[in-house]
């Protein structure tokens, strides 16, 4: 039992410590593709360090929500990290507290507080970005629902550990059309949820065009660091759910031996790196969509997910 709790804590530590690195690698790779040198992969850590040592300014017109929100944004991905298979293929101590749906709700809670805090400040760009994020969010919601329906229909459960064992690991079911289509739909969801390029431009500095970034504009100092770090962890958690549960459940620890669990850390990082390469290709070859064409993008994701379900129903 204690070793399981320790492994669980190790999972959380992995998510905490490696998520800025993933952000850094992604930024660097994208700059390299554009033939620039790009910032160091450790830049996100330096940013966080700098922000933690700066003074914080809070508007006197804002309420407690503005002050609480960074902590909620920071903590929710950690909660999800307790529920999903980050390092181990067997369920850990808290695994049965919530399924993929529960994890989705916890992540959505962070997003909800971010929205509230953005509206709270009175900065005109905050509410605008918040309402846009909500728009993307409610368009992505049905896709999430259908993905979960399909997963639970095929695997008989939405607990991520059971899904990867029953559906993704056996080779015949790995290649079936439902799985291929579902992976496609989930990639589109990750792009939308993480604010990546066809939906949102994460490196844009123009407030009027921002979707996801403008919610954190009012934060400074420690709160800004927490919001940033929380965003990086959310991205990491989404990637882990996608890779470890739906695409490549290999390379996870199968026994409780500490060596094996530790070995899983670089393997997970390697898988994420491979996915980041794909993401860089997607982001470099597509242009950002106009706001009202996001409907089409997520509509396509919805249809793909629904067809994935249909191929199994009949």
């Amino acid at each position, binding site marked *: 039992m204690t070793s399981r709790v320790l492994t669980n804590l190790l999972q959380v530590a992995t998510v905490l410590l490696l998520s800025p690195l993933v952000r850094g690698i992604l930024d660097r790779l994208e700059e390299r593709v554009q033939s620039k040198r790009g910032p160091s992969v450790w830049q996100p850590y330096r940013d966080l360090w700098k922000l933690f040592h700066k003074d914080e300014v809070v508007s006197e017109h804002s309420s407690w929500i503005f002050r609480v929100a960074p902590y909620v944004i920071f903590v929710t991905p950690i909660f999800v990290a307790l529920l999903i298979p980050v390092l181990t293929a067997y369920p850990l101590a808290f695994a049965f507290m919530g399924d993929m749906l529960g994890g989705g709700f916890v992540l959505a809670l962070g997003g909800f507080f971010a929205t509230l805090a953005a509206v709270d400040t009175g900065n005109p760009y905050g509410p605008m970005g918040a309402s846009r994020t909500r728009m993307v969010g409610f368009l992505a919601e049905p896709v999430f629902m259908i993905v979960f329906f399909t997963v639970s229909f095929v695997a008989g459960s939405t607990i991520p550990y059971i899904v990867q064992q029953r559906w993704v690991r056996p080779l*015949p079911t790995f*290649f079936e059309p439902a799985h*291929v289509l579902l992976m496609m739909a989930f990639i589109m969801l990750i792009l939308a949820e993480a604010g990546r390029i066809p939906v949102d431009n994460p490196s844009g500095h123009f407030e009027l065009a921002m979707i996801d970034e403008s919610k954190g504009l009012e934060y400074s100092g420690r709160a800004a660091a927490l919001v940033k770090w929380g965003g990086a962890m959310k991205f990491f958690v989404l990637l882990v759910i996608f890779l470890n549960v739906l695409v490549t459940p290999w390379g996870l620890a199968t026994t409780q031996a500490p060596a094996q669990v530790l070995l899983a850390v670089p393997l997970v990082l390697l898988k994420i790196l491979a996915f980041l390469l794909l993401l860089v290709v997607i982001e470099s070859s597509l242009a950002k969509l106009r706001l009202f064409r996001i409907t*089409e993008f997520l509509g396509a994701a919805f249809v793909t997910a629904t067809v994935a379900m249909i191929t199994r129903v009949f």
Partner: protein
Amino acid sequence: MVSSLNDLAGGVFLLTAFGLIVPWQAAQSLRLFVVQSMCLAASALLLASGLGAPDLIAVGALTLATKSLLIPWLLRRTVSREIYTRRELSPVVNVPSSLLVALALVVLSYFVAGPLVAAVPRTFARVNLPIGLAGLLLGAYPLLVRREAIPQVIGILAMENGAFYAGVAIAPDLPLIAELAAAFDVLVIALVLGLLTRTIHERVGTTDVASLATLREIRVSGAILRKESGAREGAAR
């Protein structure tokens, strides 16, 4: 292993069939069509080993040669580059509705194929029949709503792909001559339609099929004048 790879080809086939109904540039449609044809060829080759039908090797090779190499080359040669890179501005039905219609078509094809699959005692029909049927219906959809000629041509070819995709699973020992005839047929269709589109583009200045709704009589004496007015009209639209 054969069966799971065939499943994979089926999934990608269905995805490309979806891609064809979204109004991108014609070049994108053509690229998707090439990928779809490759999936069809892959499925035929896999089924050849899975069902022990040597004819299907020829079918796969023919598909690969004609549909993923020859037809794209022909369509690119016959129709000017400008048509491929032009963006289609106003589809008749907007994209979200198109996607929902496509979804309905897939549901329909799975619904229809269910009893058929039960009746055909073939192993691979469970994947190939409904997906091929869906490919057929999704290929027919651009014929109704796309305004440019080239996506419509690709729609016809995609319909043929869908029919073949279902066909290789339910009738793997079809005489080779039938397959040969079909492959040649498609080649001729692509050539004729490509040349026709080119001619229309040269004469009228557009390949927007909405402005080609009426036939017009051209008298020899006033030919040049009419042609110019037609071109202006096309450009105005």
